[in-house]
C-alpha cells in the first residue's frame, strides 16, 4: 500500500517543492528495515486515516486536494485521544522528510576522510563451519571490543562474532545519514519498550556496536555509583575502576570538546546555563578533531569519533583477534556432563546462507543488555530468576526552543554541552541536536502546521535530558527480544522536572517559545505557562526515548539477585563471562560507554589473573 496520500497530508504537499514527492519512496525504505509488527502497525494506522478520509469525503487521502487533506487532518487532530497515535505516524515520515529536505539542501562536502585503522574481518560465509579458539566474544560493542583486546593481548586466540556488518568511515561519507541509519540500527532504530508510555530504545548493530551510533559523550562512572556497586551490591571490581576508566579514556582519546565546532545549539545551552548560573560545560567526548558534522547517530562521516571499531578493535586485531561479521549467535554450546558441572564449550552462529560452530573454553557474552538475556535463555543458561530483570534505560525526553535568529542546530557537535546543575536529582541535561528527522524530538502539528515547523526547523535549539532511573524494566523473549519498561513513579516526577529545567534553560537563553513535545500543549511562551502545562501533564503524555539499557545480567555478590558473580562470571555454568552493559550492577547515571569498557576490562583482567 502506498503511503503517498498520508505523507502528502502530513507534510501539506502542495506541489511547490520537489522533495515531498520523494518522501513516500524514502519512507518505504525506512519501513522495510523495521520489524514486522512496527511495519504492520504503521501501515494499519495509515490505512485507518485513509478510511477516515474516504468515509468523510468519499475519496482517499491521495485523491484529495491539499485543502481537503488539511481539513481531514484538522478533524483528526481535534480528537486528543488520537494525538499520540498521529505522533507515532509522524516519526518515520519526519525521518524520511528530513532526509529528503537535507539532500535538497545538501551541506558542502567535508574535508578529506581519515583512513580507518585495519581490522581482521571475515564474513560468516567465508569462515569455516568448524573452528576452534581460546575465547569467543559475542558482540563487538564497547564491552566486547575491550574484552577481545584484553584477551588477545594476553596471548589467547580470540574470535569476535558480530551480528551486524562492518561500515567504514568512507562508506559513511558516501551516503546520506538515513541510508546508514537503517543499516546501523537493530530493527531500523524502531526498537520499542512496551509500557506506558512506550519508549523508543534504539540500539546499534554493526562492528563497533552502539559506539558507532552514539553521540560520543564519555562520562566517567560517578564515584557514588562505584561506591554503591562495591559496598551495597558486592561488585568489588568497581574498587579498581579508576585505573580501568583511565585506560578506557586513553583508548578512546577522550577530551573536552573544543568550542570551535561546538555549534549554536551548544552555545545556546551554555548561554542559558550562564544566565541561570547553572553548572554547564562542553562535554568530554571521544572525538578528537570533530568537524561538527552532527551525524554521530548515523556513523561519524569524518572518522573523528573514536568508536571502538576505530580504536579498540584495531588494537585487538593487531594482537591477533579476528572478527566474524554477519554472525548471529544462536546459542552458547554447553557441555552438560563435565565433572565439575556444566561448562561452556563454544558457540553456534548463523547468518545468511551460512552457519558455523566455534569451540572455545571461554565465551564472553557482550551482546548488549537487550540481547544477552535472550541469548542466555536460548542457550539453556537462563534459569536465574533475575535474568533479564533489573533493566535501567536512562529514560530521556527532549524539548526545543524557538529563537529569533537561525540556530541551524545540525551544524555543529551533535551532543555538545552537559548541564549538571540537577545531577544530584538524577537529571542530566545534554544539548543534543540531530540531523533533521533523526532527533528524538517530534515536531508538533499536522499538515501545514507541521510543514511550517519543518521549514522553520533551523531556528530551533534542542535539549535532551536523561534521568537516573530505577530498574523497572525487563527483557523478555528467547529468540526475539521483547522489552517491557514501566516508568517508576519517582522517575516520572524526575522526567517532568527535567522537562521544566530544560524549558527554563531555553527561556533563559532567549527562546521565544518552547516546544514541549506534549501533544495537547505543544508550545509555551513563558516559564509560568510551562509550569501550568506540566502541572496537568502525566508522564504518559511525554515522548520518551532511551539509549542506555543496562543491568539485565547484573554482577554482584547476592546469589539470589545477581545472575553473575562479582567477577562477571555467569552463575550456574563455567566458562561464561558477561562483559557488556547487561552486567552493570545498576544504572550508571551517566552515558555508559566508559563504564561498560572499564567493566569489561576489569572482568577480563580478573579472569586472566584467576
Amino acid at each position, binding site marked *: 500500500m502506498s503511503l503517498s496520500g498520508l505523507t502528502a497530508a502530513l507534510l501539506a504537499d502542495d506541489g511547490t517543492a520537489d522533495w515531498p514527492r520523494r518522501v513516500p519512496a524514502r519512507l518505504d525504505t525506512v519501513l522495510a528495515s523495521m520489524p514486522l509488527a512496527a511495519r504492520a502497525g504503521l501501515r494499519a494506522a495509515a490505512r485507518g486515516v485513509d478510511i477516515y478520509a474516504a468515509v468523510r469525503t468519499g475519496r482517499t487521502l491521495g485523491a484529495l486536494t491539499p485543502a481537503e487533506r488539511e481539513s481531514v487532518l484538522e478533524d483528526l487532530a481535534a480528537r486528543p485521544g488520537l494525538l499520540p497515535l498521529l505522533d507515532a505516524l509522524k516519526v518515520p515520515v519526519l525521518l524520511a522528510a528530513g532526509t529528503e529536505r537535507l539532500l535538497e539542501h545538501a551541506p558542502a562536502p567535508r574535508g578529506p576522510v581519515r583512513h580507518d585503522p585495519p581490522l581482521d574481518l571475515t564474513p560468516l560465509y567465508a569462515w*569455516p*563451519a*568448524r*573452528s*576452534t579458539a581460546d575465547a569467543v566474544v559475542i558482540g563487538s560493542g564497547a564491552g566486547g571490543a575491550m574484552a577481545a583486546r584484553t584477551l588477545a593481548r594476553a596471548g589467547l586466540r580470540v574470535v569476535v562474532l558480530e551480528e551486524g556488518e562492518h561500515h567504514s568511515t568512507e562508506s559513511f561519507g558516501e551516503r546520506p545519514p538515513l541510508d546508514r541509519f537503517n543499516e546501523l540500527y537493530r530493527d531500523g532504530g524502531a526498537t520499542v519498550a512496551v509500557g506506558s508510555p512506550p519508549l523508543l530504545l534504539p540500539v546499534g548493530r554493526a562492528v563497533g556496536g552502539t559506539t558507532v551510533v552514539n553521540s560520543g559523550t564519555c562520562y566517567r562512572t560517578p564515584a557514588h555509583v562505584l561506591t554503591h556497586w562495591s559496598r551495597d551490591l558486592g561488585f568489588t571490581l568497581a574498587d579498581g575502576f579508576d585505573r580501568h576508566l583511565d585506560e578506557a579514556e586513553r583508548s578512546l582519546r577522550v577530551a573536552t570538546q573544543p568550542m570551535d565546532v561546538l555549534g549554536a545549539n551548544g552555545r545556546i545551552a551554555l548561554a542559558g546555563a550562564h544566565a541561570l548560573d547553572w553548572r554547564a560545560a562542553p562535554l568530554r567526548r571521544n572525538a578528537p578533531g570533530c568537524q561538527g558534522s552532527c551525524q554521530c547517530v548515523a556513523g561519524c562521516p569524518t572518522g573523528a569519533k573514536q568508536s571502538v571499531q576505530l580504536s579498540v578493535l584495531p588494537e585487538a586485531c593487531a594482537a591477533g583477534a579476528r572478527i566474524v561479521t554477519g554472525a548471529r549467535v544462536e546459542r552458547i*554450546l554447553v*557441555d*552438560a*556432563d563435565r565433572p565439575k558441572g556444566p561448562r561452556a*564449550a563454544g558457540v*553456534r552462529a548463523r547468518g545468511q546462507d551460512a552457519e558455523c*560452530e566455534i*569451540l572455545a573454553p571461554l565465551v564472553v557474552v557482550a551482546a548488549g543488555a537487550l540481547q544477552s538475556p535472550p541469548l542466555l535463555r536460548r542457550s539453556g543458561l537462563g534459569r536465574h530468576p533475575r535474568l533479564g530483570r533489573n533493566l535501567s534505560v536512562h529514560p530521556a525526553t527532549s524539548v526545543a526552543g524557538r529563537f529569533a535568529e537561525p540556530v541551524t542546530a545540525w551544524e555543529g557537535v551533535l551532543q555538545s554541552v552537559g548541564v549538571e546543575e540537577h545531577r544530584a536529582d538524577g537529571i542530566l541535561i545534554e544539548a543534543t541536536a540531530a540531523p533533521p528527522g533523526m532527533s528524538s524530538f517530534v515536531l508538533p502539528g499536522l499538515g501545514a502546521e507541521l510543514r511550517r515547523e519543518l521549514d522553520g526547523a533551523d531556528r530551533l535549539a534542542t535539549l535532551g535530558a536523561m534521568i537516573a532511573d530505577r530498574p523497572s524494566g525487563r527483557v523478555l523473549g528467547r529468540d526475539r527480544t521483547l522489552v517491557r519498561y514501566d516508568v517508576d513513579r519517582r522517575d516520572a516526577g524526575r522526567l517532568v522536572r527535567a522537562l521544566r529545567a530544560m524549558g527554563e534553560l531555553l527561556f533563559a537563553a532567549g527562546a521565544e517559545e518552547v516546544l514541549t513535545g506534549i501533544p495537547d500543549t505543544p508550545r509555551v511562551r513563558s516559564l509560568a505557562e510551562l509550569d501550568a502545562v506540566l502541572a496537568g501533564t502525566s508522564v504518559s503524555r511525554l515522548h520518551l526515548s532511551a539509549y542506555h539499557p543496562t543491568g539485565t545480567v547484573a554482577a554482584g555478590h547476592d546469589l539470589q539477585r545477581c545472575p553473575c558473580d562479582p567477577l562477571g562470571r555467569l552463575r550456574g555454568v563455567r566458562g561464561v563471562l558477561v562483559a557488556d552493559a547487561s552486567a552493570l550492577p545498576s544504572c550508571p547515571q551517566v552515558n555508559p560507554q566508559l563504564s561498560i569498557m572499564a567493566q569489561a576490562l576489569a572482568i577480563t583482567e580478573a579472569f586472566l589473573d584467576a
Partner: protein
Amino acid sequence: MSADPTSGPATSSGSPARGTVFRESMLGSLRLDDDDRTRRVRLDLTVSADRLLRPFGTTMARATGRIRVTGWSDDPHAEGDLEISPLARRRIRYRITFTADGRRLTLDGWKSVSPRRPVTSMTVLPYTLYEDGVRLGAGTLRFPLGTQLFPFLTSFRFPRRENPGAFLTPRWRGEPGRTEVWYTTVTDPDTGTGLWLHHELTSPADGSPPYAHGWAAVFPKDGPVRHARFGPAAWSAQESGFSTDGIAVRPGSLSGSAEDGALRWDIAERPAGEPLFTFPRWSWRRLLLPAAQMLPAARSCYDGSFTHDGTTLTLTSATGASARIYGHGNARRWAWLHADLGGGDVLEIVSAVSTRPGLRRLPPLTFFQLRRHGRTWPRRPERSAVGWAGLCRFRTDIGLPTWTVTGRTALRRIRVEVTQPADRVLALDYTDPDGGHATCRNSERADAHVRLERWWFGGWRTEAEWELDGTAHAEVGSR
C-alpha cells in the same frame, strides 16, 4: 574391581570390563585455501574406546585408519581421537592426524547433533584442516547411509578390557586336591630354539602341605633337549604370580635357576595381545570343569637371557605365550598346541579326556580358539568342544608323532596336523594331587600344518594356510 579372579573378571583396577570397537567410513570433499580445486576425500576409521559407549554421556575413543584425498594424499596410518557425545554435548568430534605431501596435518571437525535434523546432523561432518594450528582448508565429510549403515552397525564389537598381569594371581585358596600351573613356551626366532618354563603348585588330595615345583627345558635346533627340575619346595601364599626358592613368575618377568645354576633364566615378558580363554571363561572363573586353561595374553614377546650348561641364549623379541592352568589334576589323555601363526594370529588347542568316571569314556573334548585379525573363531570355545549337543563338534585324533584336529562351523572349516618328531620331544612324568601319574611328551619345536577354508557358493576355498616348521609348541599326555 577386585584382582581376585574368583570374584569377577580380571581387569586393571577401576577400568570398565568392556570396550567398544567399530568401523566407520565417510566420503566427502576438501578445498584447500590456496587451491580452487575441490578434492574428493575418503576416510576409513577403526574407532576403539576403553569403555562401552555412553549414549547419555561422553566417550573418548581412539581412531586409526586411512585417509585418501584425490591427487594429494593416501595415508593408511591416520590416527587420532574421537569425542563421542551425541546427547550430553550434542557433538561427535573427530581429530585425525595424517600425512600429506610429507606434511603432518590435522583434520578437526565435528558432527553437531540436532534433534530437529537427526539424520543430517549425525551424518554430516564439516571439518577444518590445520598444519601446526594454521588453517589449510576446509571441507565436509558425509556418512553414506545407503552403503555404509549396515557395515557400520555390524562392525560394532564390545571386547573385554583385561589386564594380563591380573591373571597371574594364584587361584588356589587352600583347598586340597588342586593343581595350579604357570607355564611359558617361547621360540627364539634367531636360533630356532624352543624354551619351556613350567611352574606348578600342587596341593595333595590327602591334605598334606602344598608344594611348589617345576622345570625348565630348552629345545635347541641342533642338539638334544635339555631340561632340569626345581623343587619341590614349601609353598607360601603369593600376592601375584609364582615364587619359590629363587624362581619367580611376576607380571612382566620370569627368572630363576635349576640344577644349581646349570639352567638359569632372566626374561622380560611383554604381553602383545588380549587374553585368550581356551576353555570357556566361566570355567576359569568358577572351577566347574575338572580343570581349565587360559592365556593371559594370546601372545607375548620376550627379551632376556637363558643359560644352559654354559651356553647363553639371548632373546630379543622372541615370540611365545604364557598360560595358566587350574584344576583338580591332569586329564586322562590330552593334546595341546600353541601356534604363533604370525601377524598377531594365534592358534590354541587343548583336547582332553577327563579322568572322571563316565566322562573318561567320551572322545576328547576339543577346546579350539583361533585368534585371527583380532577376532576369535569359534566365537566361544563351547562350540568347538560340544558343538550342537555333540553334533558338529571339533574332533581330535590324538596320537604320536602326529595328531590332528578337524572342525567346521557354518561357513568355515579347519584342519590342523601337528607333528612332534621323537628327537624333539621331552617326556616327563606328571604327578596329580591324588598321587596319580601321567606322562607328557612335549615339544617346543613341533611342526604344524593349518588349513582354514571358507565355503563359497558351492565349494570350499582355502582362506588361509600356515606351515609351522619347528615353531609350534605342542604336547601329548597319556597314562
